[in-house]
């Protein structure tokens, strides 16, 4: 199958691309960040998905499937840029898919869609609406992109659309929100709170996305791996030290004194859990994780021991 991946330069997207190539798919990537040392066989276009030249790739190459991975999280850009990339980019992808004969599209979203709060259920099902956007407005563009992608299910019925809400990824690449949060010696926590964190090994996450493509999924699916763990346990297993601080003090210190950067709204995400029920995805695809929760953390710890390099390799996205 000819598969186009907007956002191919992100680390998870690269893993997806390599897997697709290995099982015989033709892979085309669009990403303005480029990919130094891109594997032979992957056709890379260093373009912004919202520019006219990107549409020309759709027009000329006629991909059969698209895996949209060109979204960014709250810490990577300001609000205006995030809206342009997350919502504007998603809109462009679906418009190009509709105009140029794409049959299948997978939107790779995030489980943070559901939000974190004291009254939220522990295991979110796909039918639940996003919550707590008021306290974490930095998530609004990702939520909007997710909802825009989901409405293709009825707006573009001829397009097989799957929206994946993938939990945090973790692994030896050090890529992703959770990996960044764990990078320092101290893992900040809100005093008196120790939420469950749900994560999946990055190789399992890439395999799940490829599985979704192979299964021809249509619908909205949570994607998760092994059981969640309390943040304090993750910190300990990663060889870090949990640093519980009063919430007001923590709000002042994040991003300083060696603590990871966090937007103010994200403090709720280290007070309350975001855990999803991924049973539907497992049932419809037969997917099962290969790395359990402790092995996943240990692969990160082994790649980033505190005695050696303490910061994950900076990734463009």
């Amino acid at each position: 199958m000819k598969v186009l991946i907007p956002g191919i330069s992100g680390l998870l997207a690269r893993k997806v691309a390599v897997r697709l190539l290995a099982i015989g798919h033709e892979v085309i990537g669009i990403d303005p960040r480029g990919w130094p040392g891109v594997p032979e066989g992957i056709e890379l276009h260093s373009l912004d998905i919202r520019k006219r030249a990107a549409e020309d790739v759709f027009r000329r190459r006629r991909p059969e499937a698209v895996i949209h991975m060109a979204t960014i999280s709250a810490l990577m850009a300001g609000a205006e840029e995030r809206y342009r990339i997350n919502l504007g980019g998603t809109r462009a992808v679906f418009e190009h898919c509709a105009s140029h004969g794409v049959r299948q599209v997978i939107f790779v979203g995030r489980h943070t869609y559901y939000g974190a709060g004291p009254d939220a259920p522990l295991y979110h099902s796909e039918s639940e609406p996003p919550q707590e956007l008021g306290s974490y407005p930095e998530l609004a563009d990702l939520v909007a992109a997710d909802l825009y992608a989901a409405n293709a299910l009825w707006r573009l019925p001829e397009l097989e659309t799957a929206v994946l809400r993938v939990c945090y990824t973790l692994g030896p690449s050090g890529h992703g929100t959770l990996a960044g949060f764990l990078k320092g010696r101290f893992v900040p926590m809100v005093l008196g709170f120790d939420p469950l964190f749900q994560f999946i090994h990055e190789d399992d996450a890439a395999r799940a996305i490829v599985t979704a493509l192979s299964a021809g999924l249509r619908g909205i699916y949570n994607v998760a791996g092994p059981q969640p763990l309390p943040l304090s346990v993750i910190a300990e297993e990663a060889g870090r030290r949990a640093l519980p601080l009063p919430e007001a003090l923590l709000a002042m210190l994040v991003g300083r004194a060696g603590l990871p950067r966090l937007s103010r709204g994200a403090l709720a995400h280290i007070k309350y859990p975001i855990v999803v029920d991924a049973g539907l995805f497992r049932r419809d695809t037969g997917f099962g994780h290969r790395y359990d929760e402790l092995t996943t953390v240990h692969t990160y710890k082994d790649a980033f021991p505190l005695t050696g390099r303490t910061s994950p390799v900076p990734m463009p996205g």
Partner: protein
Amino acid sequence: MPDEISARVDRLELPFDARGVDDYGVSKWHLAMTFRASAFLYRKYFQVKCTGIEHIPPRGRAMLVGNHSGGVALDAAMVIASCFFEMEPPRLAQGMAEKFINRIPFASTWASRCGHLTGLPEHAQRLLEADRLLMVFPEGARGTAKLWKERNTLVDFGTGFLRLALRTKTPIIPFAFLGGSDAIPTVTNLYKIGRLLGVPYLPVTPWLLPLPRPAALSVHYGEPLRFEGTGSEDDDTIARQVEEVKGRIAALMEGGRQ
């Protein structure tokens, strides 16, 4: 060397991982710490009398449904202790925590690590579908707010528990808890001050603070009740079934007092 409490925690039939945490965040370490404290209260301080424990199935989904006996949630703690200390193998009764608890530092963590998730219908249904033992007090916070003079009464029951039992085909094990108001005799509740402190109310005892005295407590379990239905029956049908449960609990309370 493992002590008795740790050994009983090890025998809980829950899917703990290598770190002793299950998929709801229930932690063996937190359970052992909590049951060490409740062992003293259950066995020594209150010398809780327990009857009918054989009515609770050793495994599989079940719903413990009983009365609040006033004061703070001493009744819940002792019911949980009875399932842990009296059953073979021990079982973990999981309560539905009042929503305010999840907003309070430390209380939030300890409640969830001990299996008492926020009182949401989604949580109750999920726990039952996972064949857990759920503990429900249909009187809700109005039940814990009972004054000493109201200790042997039952206030209105909610109906959600019965619809859930029907939907999940769960047996209801009624129970009566007696003596809570003798341990913490509430003479009045301070609602405004409680709200300022982030709790629904603050109970006031003759010695002001809601500290329990060593009163005789007892918990009496009755035979399981099984209702037929889908959970989507009309309110009148459900109300009749709720009244049947309430009647069984009232009878257990009466029997326990004699």
